[in-house]
């Protein structure tokens, strides 16, 4: 189960990035080639490929190369690893800490 927890950490780290979440979201509609996916993001292809590799190494997506086209496919089973009770609690506390952080660093709320 400790291994499960480590897997969960990996998946959450992968999902902590907005670009990678957007990739996951787009792949939710069906497989897409790297170039079709990458065109939607304001970054160079090498930068985008780093995100793809991160997603692939955590098993959230699979990629298949056919000729010159690399196609990405969402691995829904892997995504389900976060679908757990403890993960839900972690999300609640992560988001709560995000809100605390924005609150205490907001100059409007914290007069000197």
């Amino acid at each position, binding site marked *: 189960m*400790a291994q499960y927890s480590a897997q969960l950490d990996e998946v959450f780290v992968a999902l902590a990035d907005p670009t990678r979440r957007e990739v996951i979201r787009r792949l939710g509609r069906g497989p897409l080639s790297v170039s079709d996916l990458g065109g939607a993001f304001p970054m160079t292809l090498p930068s985008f490929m780093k995100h793809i590799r991160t997603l692939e190494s955590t098993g959230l997506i699979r990629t298949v190369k056919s000729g010159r086209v690399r196609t990405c496919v969402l691995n829904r089973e892997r995504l389900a690893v*976060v679908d757990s009770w403890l993960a839900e609690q972690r999300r609640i506390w992560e988001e709560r800490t995000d809100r605390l*952080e*924005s609150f205490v660093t907001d100059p409007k*709320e914290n007069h000197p």
Partner: protein
Amino acid sequence: MNPDLDLTLERIIRAPRAVVWSAWTEPSRFEKWWVPAPTICRVDHLEVRPGGALVTRMSEGDGDDFVPQLDAAFLVVDELERIVFTNAIDSAWRPRNPEPVVMTAEITLADHPDGTDYRVLVRHGDPASRDLHEKLGFFDGWGSVTEQLARLTESESPQ
């Protein structure tokens, strides 16, 4: 720390420790971050001392329909350093087994060159209660990421 039951998180918050502490201990400040917008939080009791009450309500609407959110008690309070509270007993110290989950949360603050080293350790009850929650259909929304993804995807028109 039991990785099957507990969670930890650590954050460097770019604000002085006293500011973070006051966000935890002053009701009018606590209300502003405790629950996600647009839900409104109202603090009934925030008695930050050992045995003190931590009671909050929340409203999903225009602020007329507040429902109980948390009824808990502080166990340990070390000024500017540590807050521990649990919902295993309520604010009247009566043993409880509240929904959605029984927990003891330990918040630790320490000085850091960039502000505050903020750590959270939440200890949860045993997996039996987890199974119960599953049977009760506790999981929804983001709890089921797959489902949320499906809904998000379906709600969007293809580009």
